[in-house]
């Protein structure tokens, strides 16, 4: 104990980034060891696709038109799974209190969680896309689509992280997240679906652009708002 414990007396930004890093790292480290969450999200994603497929008895042409819809609904459902879990971890042994006790800016906690959630989401999507292309032999891997997926996921995780940290502090935590998240995320989903199907049907860019813009706009708005109000969500 008698050895001097020194704090880094460095710039605010430096320590801010270190905190963000530490939080994201911890989630990823835990996941890297067990790989539970990722595999769960993956299997679930595939299940959703299959269930859709059989529930709707999609015939080939019908399917072509709904591909992007199915994809995004799948991502949405798989996403909530991930968000729920990554917040449940924080609540487990009172860790959330541990985080809140730390002398770091609340937004660092937010961005840390956003990063780890986003990574999980993107990994899942990166695997689902090719699988889907194979299942329904339509090539989904195009630069445009990847861009859309990225934008969509950012918006989704941006709001999702905020709402999941709200949901986890309520009594009905295990059921509340999808209910809070799905309706507000619709704008992002719609734009994403439209843009994706635009790329899939190789529409001219000027028909896709408005949707991309909408997507970008909502991403920015959501992230900005979430970032601003996150303090109020975690402050007790």
């Amino acid at each position, binding site marked *: 104990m008698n050895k001097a414990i020194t704090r880094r007396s460095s710039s605010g930004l430096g320590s801010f980034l270190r905190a963000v890093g530490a939080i994201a790292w911890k989630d990823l480290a835990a996941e890297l*060891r067990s790989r539970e969450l990722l595999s769960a999200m993956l299997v679930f994603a595939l299940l959703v696709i299959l269930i859709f497929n059989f529930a709707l008895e999609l015939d080939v042409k019908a399917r072509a038109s709904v591909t992007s819809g199915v994809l995004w609904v799948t991502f949405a459902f798989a996403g909530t799974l991930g968000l729920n879990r990554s917040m449940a971890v924080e609540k487990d042994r009172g860790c959330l209190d541990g985080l809140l006790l730390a002398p770091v800016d609340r937004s660092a906690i937010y961005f840390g969680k956003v990063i780890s959630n986003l990574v999980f989401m993107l990994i899942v999507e990166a695997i689902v896309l090719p699988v889907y292309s194979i299942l329904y032999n339509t090539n989904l891997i195009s630069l445009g689509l990847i861009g859309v997926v990225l934008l969509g996921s950012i918006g989704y995780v941006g709001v999702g992280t905020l709402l999941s940290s709200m949901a986890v502090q309520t009594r009905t935590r295990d059921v509340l997240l999808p209910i809070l998240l799905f309706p507000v995320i619709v704008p992002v989903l719609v734009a994403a679906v439209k843009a994706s199907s635009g790329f899939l049907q190789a529409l001219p860019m000027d028909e896709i652009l408005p949707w991309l813009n909408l997507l970008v706009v909502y991403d920015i708005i959501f992230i900005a708002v979430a970032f601003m109000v996150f303090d109020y969500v975690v402050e007790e």
Partner: protein
Amino acid sequence: MIEVKKLIKRFGLKTVLRGLDFHVEPGEFVALLGPNGAGKTTFLRILASLSRPSLGQVSIAGHALPAQAAEVRRTLGVVSHLPLLYGDLTAEENLHFYGRMYDLQNLDSRVTDVLHMVGLEHRRRDLVRTFSRGMQQRLAIGRAVLHDPEVMLFDEPYTGLDQDASAMLDDVLRNVAARGRTVVMTSHDLARAEELGSRFDVLSRGAIAASCTQKELSASNLLTFYKQALAA
């Protein structure tokens, strides 16, 4: 160091803290006593900025709560009823993580020291999930003192500790007290409290029913003082 005036805390219609006044000088070691449900944990959670007062002023190290929570947090080390540890991380990783959150330097050596102190070196690479209750409590204590805080808020820190661990904690607390740190500790083990504390406050029905220092006590013993305080 700690300044609390007319603190009131309500949960819905139930008032738990009723105009509580509390004042701690730097370097004091306050043993916070009181029956089950008196409000000790509620009070400590408010001091730790984990819960908002319904009314009243709270300030620590000159910073008001909840307004300046950020400043207050650097000075605090907290042991609560829950260990505040990640079950899916190892003992080592947990301390490393919190070390980064507190932005400590030469972290590795510090973590090793702490693990050694709480006697978990041989388990450093095991997941906290698999720890026994006492082992989790040990690590929780390690986590709380990792950054050598100015003010320590310990809620029943001896829970689940065995003989060695209790002795270890005794040393830790004596040591920090000797280095002029401020400690507020709740406990139901009066004997231990009497050994360690420099002051004894009895919390009852949401207010400090009685308070006396080590010296004033020395005549009588703590148990009788405690009983009188509650009887009053």
